[in-house]
């Protein structure tokens, strides 16, 4: 199965200058666990912020999410894979890097996101299509 077939194309992003609280609002509204953090300054790189970052780096430490820039807690650089990469290789990369999602990039542009759930579903569909494999 191609990565293109399983990736999420609709990416939710937030500017790195936005507050962590705004990121939390967006995640709650959209019922998602991560946001692409777009660099607000040329010196910055794009990154990703997850619910895990919000909890461990801000909330659990008793910090005020309204006073912290989301860019300050985002993980960088983005883990990108080309869109013609195989699902198996992506799964191996995720295991090696201990991450739950990777971005799919095409010529430097992020075009999609593949999460563990997508990989699991792809594997299940593959098993169903090849029952005696």
């Amino acid at each position, binding site marked *: 199965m191609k990565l293109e077939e399983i990736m999420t194309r*609709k990416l939710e992003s937030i500017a790195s200058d936005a507050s962590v609280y705004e990121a939390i609002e967006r995640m709650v509204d959209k019922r998602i666990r991560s946001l692409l953090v777009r660099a607000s300054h040329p010196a910055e790189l794009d990154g990703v912020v997850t619910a895990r970052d919000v909890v461990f780096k801000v909330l659990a430490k008793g910090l005020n999410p309204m006073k912290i820039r989301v860019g300050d807690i985002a993980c960088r650089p983005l883990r990108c894979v080309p869109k013609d990469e195989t699902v198996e290789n992506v799964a191996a990369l995720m295991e090696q890097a201990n991450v739950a999602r990777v971005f799919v990039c095409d010529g430097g542009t992020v075009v999609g996101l593949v999460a563990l759930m997508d990989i699991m*579903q792809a594997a*299940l*569909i593959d*098993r*169903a*299509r090849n*029952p005696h494999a």
Partner: protein
Amino acid sequence: MLKKFMRGNRKEEAALTAMHEHLDLLCAAGHTLTELLTSNAKDLVEKIFDLEREGDTARRRVLSIIFEGAFLPYLRPNLCRFVELVDEAFDTVEDTARYYDLIALHPSITEECRRIASFNQQMCEILILAFELAVRGEDIREQVLAIRILEKRVDDLKGDIYQKIHEVPVADFWQGKFYADFLQSLTAFSDLIEDASDALYVLTVSFR
């Protein structure tokens, strides 16, 4: 497993063959629809209409064989329900092609529509596989789950389309209606295939 419930005559064999043929035709129509949405070759619309007519013939054949006495009586309602659901899915493919012929698909939703058609086709292929496994008495749990996963993806894409649909310009009432009907039938297919796979699963469970 279905063969286990045959009563020694050839009617069951004939019904199963006709059911397989019905599913094959549905899959061919689904494939043609994907091709139509990708290539925009409108002559494929007629091909889908022809396949639907052939599908109708196959459905009538299955039902008449069942009413002539194929299979044990308690199995017949569920078998007929499965056949009717497959036929309803066939009708949605025909409707999708008909409405597609009447609209000019807007570029902002073209990709989503193509992906839905492709998922529909995959669901259909898995349903055939599930049918074959059920006939052999094998478990179809994994196929039912895969169909459910794909249906969820179609639902997500439907949501994406509905978020964008207000940006699509429509010339008049009828243009808007055809658009809405096109999207309705394109996305209804997956629900019917899911229902058909559930009906098949119920049949296999009742054999245990």
